[in-house]
């Protein structure tokens, strides 16, 4: 049933009894034309694109837990394309352009709020690096510009401007189209749309092995039994390296815990997304009124979705250095996701190992903003067996040739 104010009003009269499950809780069939491992945003978006764009509906998404329960449900919901290299901008701005039409496309309000993002600089040297990025963005057709101190301060009036401030707000990079979106809604919106097109979404189904015969993928082993396919997409973030290793594909991926924090909800006090280069802390305020805060990784290789105290103390002391008045607020919730970090902090997209196996992983700390692009590109590879022009530069082979896309190195800012 279509979602709209009309259907909502009609159901209001009927006690909301008319709604049907947003997605069908499918049981696995014996075989599919394509299988995607990982029921996060990327996996669900891939299934939707396969059905919608490529007309492939004998498709299954296998999720070991509940959809949207991995990094899709654990990030700080920031969406942006303020990147340095043309290849990165092509990828992330594709995602941003798709996000801009996604609520209408999926008939599901993902609450995309393009409130703009400021990356703040505090020294002349940092302003020079911001200028380097802003110009790169403009050359790549993205709305990035260098912002001077006065205009930047007006964007974040509560930011620390006192004499005691450790970091003066000297200006920075501004992207107006950047912002935030409701992360759960992205997963559920794609799931509902894909399910409506006939895709099987199978939760509680963990893939334990990949079956290969004569160099070609023939299916997967799961705790709900074997399922056959010749086209397999891996979009399982931190779990991807373990699966790929089963077919001899060794990846340059470390997994770390990345923590995020949410404060108690308060009336609106922050209308933009802000990152301070000096503290490394970034934040935005959700529509419900909670401050959503993030920062650096727990630099300890891990597979547990839990971070530790030092990273919390560092991120939150950074926050209060940026906004001393936020010392009035209390931490409501803290959680961690397991992020799959690649040496050049760019994803790994493309075929690997046996024929029919395609990777969409290595998104590290930046996966949420790329969901629609990840889906589009993995669907293209599964449907056509070949790279999309935008995914090609992110092939695993770049580590052999040395043609890395190292945003942190290029832009001088850790992404």
């Amino acid at each position, binding site marked *: 049933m279509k979602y709209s104010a009309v259907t909502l009003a009609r159901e209001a009269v009927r006690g909301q009894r008319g709604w049907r499950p*947003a997605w069908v809780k499918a049981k696995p069939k014996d075989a599919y034309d394509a299988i995607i491992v990982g029921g996060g945003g990327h996996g669900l978006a891939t299934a939707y694109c396969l059905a919608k764009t490529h007309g492939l509906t004998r498709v299954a998404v296998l999720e070991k837990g509940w959809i949207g329960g991995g990094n899709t*449900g654990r990030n700080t919901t920031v969406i942006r394309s303020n990147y340095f290299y043309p290849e990165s901008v092509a990828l992330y701005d594709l995602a941003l352009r798709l996000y801009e039409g996604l609520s209408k496309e999926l008939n599901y309000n993902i609450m995309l709020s393009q409130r703009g993002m400021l990356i703040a600089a505090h020294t002349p040297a940092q302003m020079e690096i911001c*200028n380097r990025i802003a110009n790169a963005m403009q050359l790549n057709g993205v709305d990035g510009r260098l912002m001077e101190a006065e205009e930047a301060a007006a964007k974040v009036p509560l930011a620390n401007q006192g004499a005691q401030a450790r970091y003066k707000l000297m200006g920075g990079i501004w992207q107006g189209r950047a912002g935030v979106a409701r992360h759960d809604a992205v997963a559920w919106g794609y799931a509902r749309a894909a399910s409506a097109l006939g895709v099987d979404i199978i939760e509680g189904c963990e893939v334990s092995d990949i079956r290969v015969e004569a160099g070609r993928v023939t299916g997967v082993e799961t705790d709900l039994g074997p399922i056959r396919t010749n086209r397999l997409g891996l979009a399982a973030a931190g779990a991807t390296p373990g699966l790929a290793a089963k077919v001899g594909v060794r990846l340059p991926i470390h997994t770390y815990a990345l923590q995020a924090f949410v404060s108690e909800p308060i009336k609106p006090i922050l209308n933009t997304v802000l990152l301070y280069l000096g503290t490394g802390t970034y934040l935005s305020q959700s529509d419900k009124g909670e401050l959503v805060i993030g920062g650096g990784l727990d630099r300890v290789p891990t597979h547990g979705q839990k971070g530790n105290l030092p990273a919390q103390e560092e991120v939150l002391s950074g926050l209060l250095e940026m906004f001393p008045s936020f010392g009035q607020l209390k931490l409501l919730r803290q959680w961690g996701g397991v992020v799959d970090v690649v040496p050049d902090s760019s994803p790994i997209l493309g075929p690997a190992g046996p024929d029919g196996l395609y990777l969409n992983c290595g998104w590290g700390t930046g996966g949420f903003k790329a969901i629609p692009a990840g889906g589009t590109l993995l669907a293209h590879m599964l449907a056509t067996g070949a790279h999309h022009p935008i995914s090609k530069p992110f092939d695993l082979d770049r580590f052999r040739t040395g043609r890395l896309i190292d945003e942190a190195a290029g832009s001088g800012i850790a992404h």
Partner: protein
Amino acid sequence: MSGWRHPDLGTEIDRSKPLTAKVDWTKIHGFHGDTLASALLASGPRTIARSFKYHRPRGLYGMGAEEPNALFDITRDGTTIPNERATLTPLTDGLKARAVNASPTAERDRARWLDLLHRAIPAGFYYKTFMAGGWHLYEPRIRAMAGLGRLDPNTNPPADTPARSATCDLLVIGAGPAGLAAAKAAAEQERAVWLIEDGTSLGGALRWRGGEIDGADWTDFARATETAILNSDGRILTNTTAWGAFDHSLIAAWQRGPDHDVHWRIRPADTILATGAVERPLWPAQNDLPGVMSAEAAHHYLTLYGAVAGRRILIATGSDASYATAAAFAATGAKVTLADARDATPAAPDGVRVLSRQTLRAVHGKTETWGATLNDQFHSADAVLVSGGFTPSVHLHCQSGGKLDWNAEKDALVPRPGTSHMKVIGAANGTFGLGPALAEGATAAGGLAPDTPDGTNWRWHPARPDIDASGRIWIDLQNDVTLKDVKLAAREGFTSVEHLKRYTTLGMATDQGRTSNFPGLAAMADATRRSIPETGTTTFRPPVRPVPLSVIAGRRRGDLFNPLKRLPLEDAHRAQGAVFREYGGWLRPSAYGKDEAAAIQAEAEAARDTVAIYDASPLGKLDIIGPGAPALLDFAFYNRLSTLKPGRARYAFLLRESGIVFDDGVVLRPSENRFIVSASSSHVDAVRLLLEDPRQGRFDPSQVAIHDVTQAWTTLTVTGPRAPELLAAVGIDVDLPHMGVAETTWGDAPLRIARISFTGDRSYELSVPLRQGPTLHTRLDVALGAVDGRWIGLEAVMILRAEKGYIVIGKDTDGLTMPHDLGWGGPRDTREDEYLGKSSLFTEAAMAADRRQLVGLSTTNVVSTGAHLVPLDGPRRSLGFVTSSYQSPNLRRPIALALLEGGAAMQGAEIGVFHNGAVQRARVTKACAFDPEGERL
């Protein structure tokens, strides 16, 4: 109906110290020892808050962190803290409280009409609408209506909470009966016990239920426990919340102190969790009306504060535990009816009318309770106290990986032993009742069970929300999530408990689901025909209850945030009028003079014309000593250094294994077995640790040492044509070749001189031990006038080196720059032996012709650093970017360095310089624009 303060009950309050406070527009009265909640109950109005979504009138419900309604912005002597729970806010004289998310006040809230729309705004409605025209049209109004309290932009809490680490033998969390018994037993075995209690005093529920332990009143047992702990090197922290369990059994605790809080990081050898349980509500229709309270909380307010919940009290329960509560209220003269769901009930306490087989169907009233329907009969009452059983508080057990099992007999999810590093005892383990809790506590610490006449282990009639009941029934009071919402979530497929939570926001409010997680889970189980274990539980995440950000952020602020290294001669430079800036982790003079920009140009000019001095102390000084030094340096550096003759110096690069230039600098070899690596000031630690890797992993560390003695020396660099004159004036005469180094003395102090030039003019780096720094500074300063020289800051030095095309790592190189991009291809072409990064210099990418290479740019006016280089015609794409750009006072024109695709082969070519939409023309030149032959060195 105004509150009722009992004339003499109240163990926590001091009636000799009356206090007044203001809640919205109403004055309320209380005593020292009251909380805002107890004072409100005793004297205040019933409606003290409005619900988050429907703006329904709400009253006080609970007694601790589980309180879902009574939230206020609290102002005390000018300082405001939003979203404070009345139950956890000590009453102070003159305190002002303002109900959150209601205006002008809770009672007169203008947004009351929202409740009329409740049918149209169920859980998750916003996913189904607000799409027409784009979310941005609706978002501002929705954001304004969301959020609870208001931040006061003028309140900046100080960064004064210390973080303290501690270790102890046994940590007991919770000082109720079970916790006391465990702590006492352990302390009596000489173990160092830390006892942490969230409340203001020890005892937990004993404080209002009382009890006899070991033949005496429980307070004796508590005192004996305190003595035992303090005698065995233990510690007791009340007003302290253990809010996080982290790896390696670390517990984070927030101690609320009189003058400042403390953020504890405690690492116990063993941990015992005795955090009790939270009473469950019941789920009649309109269960959110002011006047509906937790029975345990009402008993707590009566005994501790003398605040009586009502005059005509109806207690709806299924548990023996409520009989003591009924007796306590009857003793005040209140009319008490106890409706027990069970068939067989204990004897009725005096003055209490007990009805059996009763089900609470509905509560009636508009902005306060008039009465309730039991089975199908109305009973008048002004307070309905509900008890639906108890939910063990297992947050910390689960945070540390502990699992839970459904125990039907205890009607609760209880910790599965051995699945976390903690032992869980008492009500937190589903052991309800004084005797069993004391026994479990003592035995957990290897002691004997204390004796008590009260040996019963409470059980109760399992209560569940009735998913077929009609009327509006609340599951999560604070986030306004009703039973219909849970059924809607089930209908729409959000049947995993995690989906239920995220779709309806059930359990995601600031009471963190203490009274809503269980009924939400039970209702979802019934709605989907599953058992509770099959439906599962959500993960428990820190903090156990909201903790101020300022407690975790601690004292790391301003001066103490990313502190800068300071020059020993800082004050001397200040006296010269230096302006300071941050350079690579040091605070250093950028220029000397009020008008910084003008000073920079004048300083750069003087350094070329006469002589200038700058403080180069931050330059890294890594002593590399021993017979193994040459081999180590040959492997670590891109340039061979074993061939460097004693008394000489050589410019060299350090690469990462990826072939990327990591640092550059001059390496001195004062003597056969001693080298000094002058790493860039921002890279000293990183370079030391980069060298330690091969020293320890590849070579024999006993044959080569690395000593960082950067901060043992003051280095002043004298540069300019009249430099030798200035040196002579202070008694330093030396004839050193360019790139020569000598170790001599100056007066009675050692002096190292290195004739190395970063400016392009003849320069001498003079290094003396720290103690001799001031003398060297003064003697040079005095001599400067005679040679018309001056002190210069780092900005002038940056211009001088840029005129020479000398690079600064990280500014003129990016994370992909290799040495041959900078014109330093020699070692790459000739060295046969292994060195760090070698194989990376021959990858496909490393051999590509389109690599970005260092070039100079000649332009008519100054281009901005960070501008990009673009083709003058054809599609516009980035060919590289400007890394350094200045007006050169010495060349009287702009100079710039850049990284340009295939730049080495483009000398003389014209190129576009793109900045913020505009394009200038530039000509590609050699990097060095000044004295290319180097005659002035």
